[in-house]
């Protein structure tokens, strides 16, 4: 589970930035892009984000491997917008009830680019942020309760184990004659049974882990931190970069006259 989200041995520059700074930037860019549906602001943001890839230790290949569902969804969203949006300008394609005009195509492309430009920062954030660093930042800098943050972090480690356990229980049940064949109802029942088995194991594991943590003094009042979550000059650059991308997108769109607030 975790391996699917973060890159192992990632030494990109952005891995060293404070997770909260990266979070702030992703929030800012998403907010600005959510304000308008036009292709200019989205293209500018997207181009800037793609230029930042190497800094997060990401390549186009890795991006496709990790983010292809999002990318496909964005493309599909753009395509359907182009089809169903009200026509304006010259009609380019007309197949019965579906038609694509210059106006609707522009809207569709804007929609697709926007989807990508909003999705990419999130993918970037996940690939270059270690969950442990994120937890440290949330507890030490954002002052979230450490019981909650560290409890979640420890539980996340179990999620990966649960994925393995699901596979094992599936095999163990096949060895008992519970098949994944049969009618949809039978299959549903088999899946429910397997889920129950996993739930029992998850609870057992979780309570043992809770005992381990409690026996190591977890939950008692004041605690110190072996790893200090710090802000560095890099974080200032990350924030400045984020503001720059957002500003460039707005200015370019306003300059080209394409900026349109979504509520208008």
């Amino acid at each position, binding site marked *: 589970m*975790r391996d699917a989200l973060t890159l*192992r041995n990632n030494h990109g520059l952005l891995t060293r930035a404070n997770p909260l700074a990266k979070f702030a930037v992703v929030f800012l860019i998403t907010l600005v892009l959510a304000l308008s549906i036009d292709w200019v602001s989205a293209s500018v943001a997207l181009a800037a984000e793609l230029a930042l890839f190497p800094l997060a230790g990401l390549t186009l290949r890795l991006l*496709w*491997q990790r983010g*292809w569902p999002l990318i496909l969804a964005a493309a599909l969203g753009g395509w359907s917008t182009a089809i169903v949006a009200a026509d304006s300008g010259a009609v380019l394609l007309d197949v019965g009830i579906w038609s694509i005009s210059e106006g609707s195509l522009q809207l569709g492309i804007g929609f697709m680019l926007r989807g990508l430009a909003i999705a990419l920062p999130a993918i970037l954030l996940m690939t270059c942020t270690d*969950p*442990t660093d994120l937890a440290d930042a949330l507890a030490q800098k954002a002052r979230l309760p450490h019981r909650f943050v560290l409890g979640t*972090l*420890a539980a996340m*480690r179990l999620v*990966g*184990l649960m994925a*393995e*356990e699901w*596979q*094992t*229980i599936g*095999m*163990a*049940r*096949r*060895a*008992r*004659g*519970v*098949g*994944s*064949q049969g009618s949809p109802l039978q299959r549903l029942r088999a899946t429910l*049974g397997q889920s129950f*088995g996993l739930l*029992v*194991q998850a609870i*057992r*594991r979780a309570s*043992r*882990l809770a*005992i*381990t*943590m*409690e*026996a*190591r*003094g*977890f*939950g*008692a009042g*004041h*605690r*110190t*931190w*072996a*790893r*200090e979550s710090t802000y560095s000059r890099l974080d200032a650059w990350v924030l400045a970069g984020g503001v720059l991308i957002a500003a460039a997108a707005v200015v370019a769109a306003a300059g080209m006259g394409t900026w349109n607030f979504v509520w208008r």
Partner: protein
Amino acid sequence: MTASDAGASGVRPAAVSARGWGWRHAGRSAPAVRGLDLDIAPGERVLLLGPSGAGKSTLLHALAGVLGDEGDDADETGSLLIDGVVPRGQRGRSGLMQQDPETQVVLSRLGDDVAFGAENLAVPRDEIWRRVHEALDDVGLRSAGGGGLNAGAGAGLNAGGLPLDHPTSALSGGQKQRLALAGILAMRPGLILLDEPTANLDPAGVLEVRDAVGRCLDKTGATLVVVEHRVSVWKDLVDRIVVLQPGSAAGSAASPATSAVLLDGPPDQVLAEARDMLIGAGVWVPGYVPATRRRVSAGSGDLLLAAEDLAVSRERPRRRGFRTIPPVPVQQGITALVRSGQALTVTGPNGAGKSTFALTLAGLLAPVAGKVSAAVELSEGAGIDPFKWKANQLISRIGTVFQEPEHQFVTGRVLDELMFGPRHLGHGEERVDELLERLRLTHLVDANPYTLSGGEKRRLSVATVLAAHPRVLVLDEPTFGQDANTWAELASFLSELLDAGTSVVSVTHDQEFSAVLGGAELRLGPASRGGARQEAGAA
């Protein structure tokens, strides 16, 4: 050494004292422990023995200060003190290691995990990293020598050791338990509590952990209380053995004066005095191998199942974009033959892919390369590839007993559990009574499988698979963590099955167990690559 005398290592050994102590878990009618009187001097090393249900884990949990979250319904009697103070509220005075290595690891980076306990005790940062390095050294997971290093990421790979940011998920079971010990040591506890710390480990892992514990005790002088079935592992390390009896037997209405402590003394003395009693209670007494049934036939030797040049992995082929990537096999080039009435033992170090091979052979995983083929005598028209068989076809031909019995429970009642296979197949229900009797489960027919003891669960999981009457039985570490009685029953029962013509494939480190079953051995090499050959052993 007195209680106030902190050694050079900064550890002050703890004293334990129990007076008429008892504990009843919430929702239970009988107490887990009753009438315990026990004194443990600072620095003493105690091995705690007793049949399952004697409340050994309950005592360790109480000493670790983690009992009592059950609400008002739980019931405590008498007193249990560490250095004259109740254990709860003295966090860090004791450290507890449990059986399951996976749940002894809290964080995903080596150094962070060791630091976790010390952080919770509000130890200053520089001191934490000093302790982390020292503790990792002590347990043999060497890290950088100098203390005071900040942030794990800064410390690279060091002479023969692991970096502080090494992922804890990549450790073996024995390494995980040693890591847990390091995490405990970093708290500087005066009392170290080990609850069957090596029950889930292979023989190499057992010694790794035992030796690490010994080194740390020699250095810190901390008090030790360890619960473990295998006496020979710990006998030379402890200076006292305490045998407990179940709370239901101790201090009952019939004999209120009886203490929970049945025997107490130096290891040799207790083992000499109580040898027969301990053997009766299923304790692994040194130098004693339980009597088992001897094989009387060599088996017909008809070929049932064959693996040819097999490569195995638990991973499925992955989809990366539009491409499909086959998994990297954990082991390849395996060739093995499974014959009627003969045993095949699969051995090899941790991570050699033994279980993965067994699951592939049993038709539960698809081979990465090579093939598993069933002979006509076994397949009986179901096709050559066991992986393609339907679940019903599989269970009447190849039965697989998993390492964790709970993974295979599919109902809420022991009897239903046993009837499950025969009902699906539409025949064989008459075998169930015989299996119940043979594996001593008759008195448990109405119980919920999840509530059984470890030994009962193991016997049930074997019985449920056998109820479908498979010709081939595949077992994954069937003797892990089992007491001597269950061990002997299981080994004898399997030898009977073998003589009756069943084929038994077992993944095991247990040489005595393989000796009872006889047959051939398949030794898998340490890494991927390098073929594995099957050797005919003494049958």
